[in-house]
């Protein structure tokens, strides 16, 4: 059930109405069943996989908390990590690594190696719920949280439908207590939830889906052979597409959660206003970047052991972040580019703080310098996203190889006009949000104004939504 489909709202509205009529325990059981229904809507077979891995982690967590006398707690901990990553590895990466291995052997002259490929469909959301399960197991093992005593509560923490398919990846210490304690219906947050859903739908259906038309045409070769202008058009269009798509998804997820009395962490903070790539990752897919920081970068040593080890740790973290996005060399290269740029930035501009926010205080640089840095960061990101979007390394390189050809065709003007038509409103909204620090535009305005804006948003959605065939980009991860 896609968040931007009528089916989702036919599901969400009765769930919300019925949910608030139940007591706390019944709410949790009802939401768990609703979440399983939501997940099973794609394919019931994958439900068994998710319930299975949830059950195993629930049981393992009982054995590994620091206070437990079980002498094998470390073994259970390692068993759980291996199990979670094995499931992810088999479903998501087996064919990729097996195929790459066979390809490498073929280049060495070894052919016809009988290596079986699984060719299995990727279970929806497996990367997201696996990371959430791993965070839970690590946190319980480290004694940061108590293991959940109720399967219903733990199961709901993993499978709560607004975050189940594409995050935001919820931390156990943030979401689990919300599952365990009774929730109250807060009128302001309920209204904000509805506004977030409208904001998300505009980002996804109007911005992302229309930019996708241009990005798909450039990457699909419909504009002809690559040149400088097409690289610009394709990468910019895809950059706005993926931002509108995923931030839109996150807004709808957060809004849906708020209708149910939950609070999800903010996942995007105006990422295209970042003045460094470091800053970008503090603003983009925050739930993933902080997960990687806490569960991978810090355990690797973080920045505590000198420049070279910091650079190494950044590189490893970003390559694995790239691989997390998909089983393809294009994602690995995307991650590697980010790893290298982050390491270089770190060398020249050492980080002063780990908190979320700009890498260097914006008031310490001039207006022009700040915007020059922002534009540079945006373009570095755009070029790296060429690898993210391309279906193969060859096609990414073929696209970028056109950078030295400046041939202009008249239809490009219309294409750039269309790109501006759909990306500039989001850019302006981001400027507004950056100065106001709100979660959606006009969040502090009167209820009457926000209600009117939501009604206007519905009219825009009705007549400017792109094709309904574009699934969310991050659903494939």
């Amino acid at each position: 059930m896609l968040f931007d489909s009528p089916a989702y709202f036919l599901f969400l509205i009765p769930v919300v109405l019925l949910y608030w009529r139940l007591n706390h325990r019944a709410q949790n059981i009802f939401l768990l069943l609703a979440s399983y229904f939501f997940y099973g809507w794609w394919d019931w077979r994958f439900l068994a996989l998710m319930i299975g891995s949830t059950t195993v982690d629930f049981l393992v967590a009982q054995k590994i908390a620091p206070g437990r006398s079980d002498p094998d707690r470390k073994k259970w901990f390692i068993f759980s990590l291996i199990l979670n990553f094995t499931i992810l590895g088999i479903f998501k990466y087996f064919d990729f690594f097996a195929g790459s291995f066979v390809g490498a052997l073929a280049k060495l002259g070894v052919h016809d190696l009988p290596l079986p490929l699984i060719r299995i469909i990727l279970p929806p959301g497996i990367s997201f719920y696996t990371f959430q399960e791993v965070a839970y197991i690590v946190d319980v093992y480290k004694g940061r949280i108590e293991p959940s005593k109720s399967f219903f509560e733990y199961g709901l923490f993993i499978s709560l439908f607004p975050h189940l398919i594409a995050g935001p990846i919820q931390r156990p210490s943030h979401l689990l207590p919300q599952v365990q304690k009774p929730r109250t219906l807060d009128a302001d947050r309920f209204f904000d939830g509805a506004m977030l859903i409208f904001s998300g739908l505009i980002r996804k259906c109007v911005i992302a889906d229309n930019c996708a038309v241009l990005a798909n045409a450039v990457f699909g070769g419909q504009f002809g052979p690559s040149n400088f202008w097409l690289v610009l058009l394709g990468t910019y269009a895809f950059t706005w597409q993926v931002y509108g798509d995923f931030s839109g998804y996150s807004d709808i997820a957060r809004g849906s959660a708020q209708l149910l009395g939950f609070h999800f962490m903010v996942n995007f903070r105006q990422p295209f206003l970042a003045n460094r790539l470091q800053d970008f990752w503090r603003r983009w897919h925050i739930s993933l970047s902080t997960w990687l920081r806490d569960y991978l970068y810090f355990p690797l040593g973080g920045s505590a052991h000198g420049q070279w080890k910091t650079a190494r740790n950044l590189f490893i973290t970003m390559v694995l972040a790239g691989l997390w996005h998909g089983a393809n060399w294009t994602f690995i290269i995307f991650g590697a580019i980010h790893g290298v740029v982050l390491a270089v930035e770190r060398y020249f501009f050492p980080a002063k703080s780990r908190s979320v926010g700009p890498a260097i205080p914006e008031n310490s640089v001039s207006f022009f310098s700040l915007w020059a840095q922002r534009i540079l960061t945006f373009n570095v990101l755009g070029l790296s996203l060429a690898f993210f979007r391309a279906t193969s390394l060859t096609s990414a390189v073929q696209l970028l190889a056109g950078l030295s050809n400046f041939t202009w065709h008249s239809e490009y003007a219309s294409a750039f006009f269309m790109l501006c038509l759909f990306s500039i409103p989001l850019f302006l909204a981001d400027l507004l949000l950056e100065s106001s620090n709100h979660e959606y535009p006009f969040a502090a305005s009167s209820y009457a104004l926000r209600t009117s804006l939501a009604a206007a948003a519905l009219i825009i959605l009705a007549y400017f939504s792109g094709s309904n065939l574009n699934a969310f980009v991050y659903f494939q991860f």
Partner: protein
Amino acid sequence: MPLSISNSRSAPFFYAKVLAGICLVLIVAFEVSSTILLKHHSETFARVSRQYADAVRVRPAKAGEPISVLMVGNSLLLDGIDVDRFQKLTSSQLRIYPIFLEATGYYDWLYGLQRLFREGARPQVVVVGVGVNSFLANSVRQDYVPLMFFDARDTLSAASDLDMDRTAASNLLLAHSSVFWNTRSVIRSQILYHVIPHSKDLFLLLKRQPPIPPAPEFQAIADSRLRRLRELCEAHGARLVILVPPTPSSDDEVHQMTLAAQNAGVDALVPIPPAALSTRYYQPDELHLNSEGAKLFTSALATFLPHTLNRDSAATPN
């Protein structure tokens, strides 16, 4: 015990209810306005509705009357055939009932024909001409078609044939039931046409021809589709002819298509081989015939279609 909603009378709840009310009113307004726009301002809807209504009334010819031919296809035929001239050229032998809708393909017409037959259409010959790419495409047109050609059962069957997930299937079902949902992308395109300068050239580029699968897959897909169409037509007493309109550089595909048709026991009609037409017979999109190309194609079709039908008349039902 249910949670008490202590602040249910507060301003946010009031406005949330107002917003829900506005949404409901807007949804009804979208539906009504889309219906009015479609029925009174859509040339495509008016043309196809008229053609569809005529096609439902088609019956086998009596002795001495021209053969009744239902001809269905997409923009390749809409732009490529001068229907009035074609009817004039063939009036002594054929009575043509055309239904041409842009961007349609195999599945649109499989279920479109099924419904036409169900509603009583009984042509002696069915000519399907959608081009090779569209014949092999795994899609249905999301606007117009679910509303005009499918009933609810067809919609679900098409979704199943296309292996759509439940979300896509429910969207298609909604496109069958709601005029607004069905036509919103058409309205969006019209708005963008007016907002974006020189958008016509851009939109031509953005339209993508479905890719042609490799040869073995091509034959397997084409064979099963041709047989299914043939069985459908034969079950209703009609003979199937596959018309392959010319598109540039499509000789190989056309050859493969005629081969597949031969294997499936279906007549394939190629009035003009693609190699015979230079680019001057095509529109700037290099896909559709221009008026000069249409003139040639119409004449060739008027010559070869009666010839094809007469060549093996013993095998012709009715």
